[in-house]
């Protein structure tokens, strides 16, 4: 559980991990989803046009409004993925500490 930048001499040497090691899968997928949620709404050339309009609203306006629920959904999926992995990591570290309780 240590990385080069964490092992400076000033660091407290005793650390009790709260979570077991991460599996990259959920974090990679989350990263991709959140990147989409940031980059796509900011790519203005894709949507700075008037047509097709929706109920009298130019594309520029209703397209951006549509991205609000879409982002919400992407964040919700990310939440589900990450919290599931988080629970697994906490279980993993609990199991090992319970096993080594005689310490």
């Amino acid at each position, binding site marked *: *559980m240590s990385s080069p*930048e964490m092992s400076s001499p000033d660091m407290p040497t005793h*650390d*009790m991990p709260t979570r077991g090691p991460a599996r990259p899968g959920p974090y990679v997928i989350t990263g991709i989803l959140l990147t989409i949620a*940031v980059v796509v709404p900011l790519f203005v050339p894709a949507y700075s046009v*008037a047509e097709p309009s929706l109920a*009298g609203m130019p594309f520029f306006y209703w397209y951006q409004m549509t991205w609000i*629920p879409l982002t919400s959904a992407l964040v919700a999926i990310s939440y589900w993925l990450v919290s599931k992995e988080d629970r697994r990591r*906490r279980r993993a570290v609990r199991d090992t500490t319970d096993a080594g309780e005689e310490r």
Partner: protein
Amino acid sequence: MSAAAVPLAAPDRPINGVALAIVILLFVLVAVLGFVAARWRRGEATGLHSLDEWGLGGRGFGTWVTWFLLGGDLYTAYTFVAVPAAMWATGAVSGFFAVPYTIVLYPIVFLLMSRLWSVSHRHGFVTPADFVGGRYGSRALTLAVAVTGIVATMPYIALQLVGIRAVLTVLGLGSAENVLLTDLPLIIAFVVLAAYTYTSGLRAPALIAVVKDLLIYLAVLVAVIYLPIKFGGWGTIFDSAETKLGATNPATGKPVGVFIPGAASYSAYWTLALGSALALFMYPHSITGVLATKSRNTIRKNAAVLPLYSLMLGFLALLGYVAIFAGTKPIDLNGTVNPQLVVPQLFLDNFPSWFAGIALAAIAIGALVPAAIMSIAAANLFTRNIYRDLMRPDATPRQEAKVSKIASLVVKFGALVFVIGMDQSAAINMQLLGGIWILQTFPAIVAGLYTRWFHRWALFGGWLAGIVYGTIAAYNVVNPVTKANFGGSIAPIPGTDGQVYIAVVAFAINLVVAAGLSLLFRALKFSDGKDITRRSDYGADENDPKVAQLEREHPLTEPGGPAF
């Protein structure tokens, strides 16, 4: 208050008695709630005599309360007034960017804020500067983050008063001749706000936010359904906006505004959205909302559900266009056009008095919630990072709470003097600068959540470079009509003609300087500073032991460890 103010109204602005009565009624209701909040979920042992209790509401707000609290905190009265005002006056680039801004905000919050929550929970950090101090052990850097936070927050509080004033003006309270009596309702509102913030702390805005948010959802929902039907659909509304914004402004010879951004405005549009999104959760009041939550995942869950407010903000922005079609005339007391009156005036012109009263009350109360949280956040920064760090390192929690309560009064009083004593545009200019400045604390706060690679003095250097560039660049923007400095937040990237948000360029300079100096300082082997955080702190949750408890059970090997 109402009876005394009636004869003072300017003759061209009659008092709307019914609407005013409803605004006063709801204001009184909210004030009572504010005082009652002191008893809500009260910690039995300590009362409100610690910053955790007074300044963070006991650190126990769950998903629902947090949703209302952060909704009320981030989507302020000034937002409700200024965004449609910008749409009405100059269109999409200065107004509608608020929509992509509040979209990309939430993935960023999702990534960053639960780590900040965990490390703060473990160590009892109350402010972002507390974290920077614990991570880097640098007094200068801590102070830089704290002072930037306080200075950026002050004009933001002042602008909430501007929001209340827009409502009061439209209601007919105020006179062009007697300035003091015009400001009297504002002063009364703020004294009441200060009193219940003082007694109840963060619990007051949390409880009031529920009322305020429900009212504002009701007002906007009714407005976006009823008004387009009344005016013959969105098509005609957008047509009239396109006509107005496409017309030539005689003062500049350019179009009045932007209906759909052309290629020249792309970079301004997306950098405004991105820069504002990166900056928002560096503001102390946003972080206060995050640290008041119960568990690591509360803020992440909220990142998925808070966008409902963005949807409301998007429709509210479009009300600026509705006002163009409706021919709303936002005439201020002195007879000039004040775009900020556009939405309150639209409500008053087109709704029955009683409903206009509810909508205007929602805006006015919407100013009280963020003003309270901002003053608490600024007071916590002062108490923790100036009073405790510099003057009284051994301050007890009780003393901290006391100092913070008094500081919150001082901060609010300062904002009031700012708005009443100075020109309104001074507050707006300062707020514009505040947005640029607060983004310069991003590297110190956020990089520290992931890595200690940056050197503490390098981060300070980057912060300084960003602040200096941002301030100069903002000063050099000249309003084409009035020839005043601080004319906007868009400037060309130095050496090019690509127009972008100044804060983003300052941020890039900040990062480059911080990275370059880090390499240099590491090569020179400058002292790195003491880091009291551990790797496990960044993933800790509510049931994990706090540092104080770990110290007791597993003493650190080095003597005289962290004092938290």
